[in-house]
Every structure is written in C-alpha cells, then in structure tokens.
C-alpha cells in the first residue's frame, strides 16, 4: 500500500481542521449557530469566483469574503425586524447563487465546482497546507483566549453583560474565528460539508461528557477520528474524501445515540 504525499497532506490538513473545529463547533451547537456556519460556507463560493475573476489568490479571496460575511451578519443581527434565521437564509442562498453566477463569468476557464462544493484533497498544495495550519492555529488561539467570556455569554448574554463581559465584541470574535475555519477548511471538506465537521463531532460528544471543556476536547478527538477514517475509506474505496469524512462522523453520532442512557456519564 503506497502512501502518497497528498494523503499525508490531506491527513495533516484534515486533522488540523478537526482539532480546531472541536471547540468552535461546540460553541456553534451551544449557541444554535449551525445555520450561521452554513451561510459563511455558502458565501465562500463567492470568494472563489472573485478570486478567479480578479486573479487574486483563492485562499485570500475566500478568507476575505468569509470575514466580510461574518461582519455583515453580526451587523444585521443587531436589528430586530426579522428573525435571525430568516436573515441567514437570505444571505446563505443569495451568496451561493451570487457565487454560482459569478463563477459563470470566469472566462476561458472551466471551473470544477465539485471540488469546491465537496472538497478535493488532491488539490491541496503545500501553500494550502500552510494556510490551513496558520488559520487553524490562529483560530485555536482565539477560541482559547475567548473561552471564558464566550462561555459566559453563551449561558446568558444579559448576565454576562452585567458581569462586565464585552458581549458584542466576544460574539463578533467568535463569528470571525468560525469564518477563518470555514475559509481554510473549504479545500479539504468542501463548502457544503464544512458545517457538518464542526457540529457533528460536537453533538456526538454531548452525551458522553459533563463539562464544556470535555465536550470541546472530545469533539476534537471524534473529528480527528472521522478525518482519519474518512480518508482511509476514500483511499480504500475511491470515494470522495470530504463526504467520506462526514459519513464517518455521522456514523459515530448514530453509534453514540444507540448507547443506553444509563451507561452515560453525568450527561444531560
């Protein structure tokens, strides 16, 4: 069995993303923000199109669009006329549609959409790897730094505010960290599946833990396991890597739900 260079790169990149997706994904689950992650992911296709159109580095363009979308969402959520899931629905699908339309304008280049939508581990270059490691490390430092205030405001925003937590800034900080992870993870897992890698491991961990830290850590481990299992399956059966990773994570989720309740730790 030969182990190609690209498999090592894919494995390293995937593990880096899974590691940081654990704590960030836990907060997405706790704060009910999975649709927010989807919206950012969908808007990243617009980043791809803009990068191709203006001949800017794709990583940079995707990151810029994700960060802009996160800030836009943070600003829109301040208004109270429309529910935030409506706003997210509008933005997610508009961004995706806009991205698809913009891609069509890219001349003389047949863009392989499948690679962006579902990930393409073959396409991960050394440069991509550094983006993933750099972005992942930044997001990890960010989530560790914001951990306590973020946890406080996740429990109750008013209480956190009275206790002196700068709630608005912490919330924007969390959104930006998610944007960074979405941007760097696009290559490996694909636009349509990034949110899955953030929320499925965290949701899987929930039944097995009794503290927020345990949940974040276990989510990282489960995500890492899903990456390794998914890539192995992909190599073995020639299945697409991103979907394979998500399928393994989903299987882990189902398996944990099947364990009888009384055997659980102090969960729920």
């Amino acid at each position, binding site marked *: 069995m030969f182990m190609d260079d690209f498999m090592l790169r894919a494995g390293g990149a995937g593990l880096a993303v899974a590691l940081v997706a654990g704590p960030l994904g836990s907060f997405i689950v*706790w704060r*009910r923000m999975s649709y927010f992650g989807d919206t950012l992911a969908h808007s990243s296709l617009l980043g791809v199109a803009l990068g191709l159109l203006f001949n800017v580095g794709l990583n940079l363009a995707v990151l810029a669009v994700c960060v802009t979308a996160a800030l836009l969402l943070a600003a829109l959520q301040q208004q109270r006329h429309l529910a935030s899931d409506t706003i997210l629905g509008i933005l997610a699908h508009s961004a995706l549609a806009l991205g698809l339309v913009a891609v069509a304008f890219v001349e003389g280049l047949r863009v392989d959409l499948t690679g962006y939508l579902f990930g393409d581990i073959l396409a991960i270059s050394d440069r991509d790897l550094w983006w993933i490691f750099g972005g992942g490390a930044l997001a990890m430092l960010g989530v560790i730094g914001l951990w306590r205030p973020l946890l406080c405001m996740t*429990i109750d925003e008013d209480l956190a505010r009275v206790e002196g937590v700068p709630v608005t800034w912490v919330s924007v900080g969390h959104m930006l960290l998610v944007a960074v992870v979405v941007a760097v993870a696009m290559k490996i897992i694909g636009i349509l599946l990034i949110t899955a890698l953030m929320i499925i491991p965290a949701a899987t961990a929930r039944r097995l833990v009794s503290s927020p830290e345990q949940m974040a850590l276990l989510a990282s481990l489960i995500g890492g396991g899903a990456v390794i299992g998914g890539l192995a399956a992909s190599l073995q059966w020639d299945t697409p890597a991103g979907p394979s990773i998500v399928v393994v994570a989903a299987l882990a989720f189902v398996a944990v739900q099947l364990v009888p309740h009384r055997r659980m730790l102090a969960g729920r």
Partner: protein
Amino acid sequence: MHAADQPLLQARSVNVTLDGRAILNNVDMAIYARQIVTLIGPNGAGKTTLLRVLLGLVSCSSGRVTRARRLRIGYMPQRLRIDPAIPLTVKRFLALNNRTSRSAVRATLAEVGAAHVENSQVGVVSGGEFQRILLARALLRRPEILVLDEPAQGVDVAGQGDLYRLIATIRDRHGCAVLMISQDLHLVMEASDSVICLNHHVCCTGQPEAVSQHPEYLKLFGAERLGGIGLYKHHHDHVHDLQGEVVPLNGEPNHGGPDQRERDDVHG
C-alpha cells in the same frame, strides 16, 4: 463600600421608548445601601425595563441613570434557560466568571437551601432550585446590590414566602441592598423597606403598608387585593421545605383557629 448618602443606583426623569411605544415615562427612583426596594405593578408596566435600564442593558431615550462607581451587582434575570446542549454542573456554573473557592460555592449553595444540587447538571434541576442557584450565583459576586427580577417565579406558593424571607436575611447577613420585582405585595410586605408601584410611570411609592392603602395602588390592582377584604384565609398544619418535603408546624393542627401564624396562605 459606598457612602450611605449616595444612591447605589439612581434614575432621574428616565424615559424609554421601544418600537415607538412609551415603556417608561419620567421615572425617578433611587436605591441606597442596605435598602430593600420592591417594584410592583401590572404585567407590561415596564418593571423589567426599568431594571434593565438601571443595569445598563437598555439605554434610555431621555433622562439619566447613575450607578455608584465600580458597583458590584449581583443580577438574577427574569428568564434564564440554560440550553441543555451545554454540559454544565451547578458548581461550575457558580464558579464561572467568579473569583471564588469551592468552599464558598458550597457555603453559598447551603445558604440558599440548594446544597443538594451542587454536582447536578444545571439542565435537570427544578424551576425553584434553579432560582436558588441563580441567587447563589449573584451572592458569590459579593454584591453591594442584588437585582432580582421576579425571584420567586417557578416557586410554589408556600416556597415563595420562604424565598422572600431568605432574601430579607441575606440583606442582613451580606449587608447588600436589594432591588427586586415582585407580582405580589402581600408576600414582599414584611421584607421590603420601600415599594415602588409602577405603571409606565411611578404611581406611588413609600413603605409597603402605605402603598397598599394608596388609591393609585387600589385602582391598579382592584380592591379585592386589599389585605383582609374578601380574602379566604386559612392555616396550614404543615409547610414544605425547599425540596418540597412536608414539615409539620410544631403545635396543634388548628385549621382556621385563632392563633395567627406567620404562614397565612392567602387565596384572593
């Protein structure tokens, strides 16, 4: 400690308009160290908004709110529901964002009568227990003022009297002021130094006995709520402790007898 002649919290000519609706109209109030002030008023009278203005969670359209410098506030919000997706024990919730020791957490839980839930997950405790946990969390901040938004909600009628008595003893033990919202003047009578009757504006204010006779109060709540008139009074031969266990009242189970106990349950 702040000088006794300086108010801890003060509102001067405060107006609040939300979505074009006037919620607070020219409200003046102040609370001083070690005072227990209760806000009463019908639903939708702006009681919670007034608390939120004083806490800085809502900004006023006109008027001024002043807080004593570096005032330590213990806040118990009206509705706090911790998402069951967050694995969190009671003791962790109490220590979160508080510089406190394990023994202080334990002692405070015992003080509010919730020692038995120390290791429980916050998602599984009862409504009454959760109110006590919130009170304990507010106390652990060593507050100069406790701000309680309907502390007795979710607590059964017998337990409500206990909770208000507990709050009165907390003032004596911790030397803090208490500002609270309550629906029922009867229950807070003995605990409050001063009552503010609010219906978008301050209807009347003063000592509980005086407010309960005030024509504005009677107009708001109707004469049947006036103590003694048209009320069905009866005595219980037992009480329930904080866990709902039956505790007999020492003495003869003299239903409707002449001996006036403190625990008249009043059904109006």
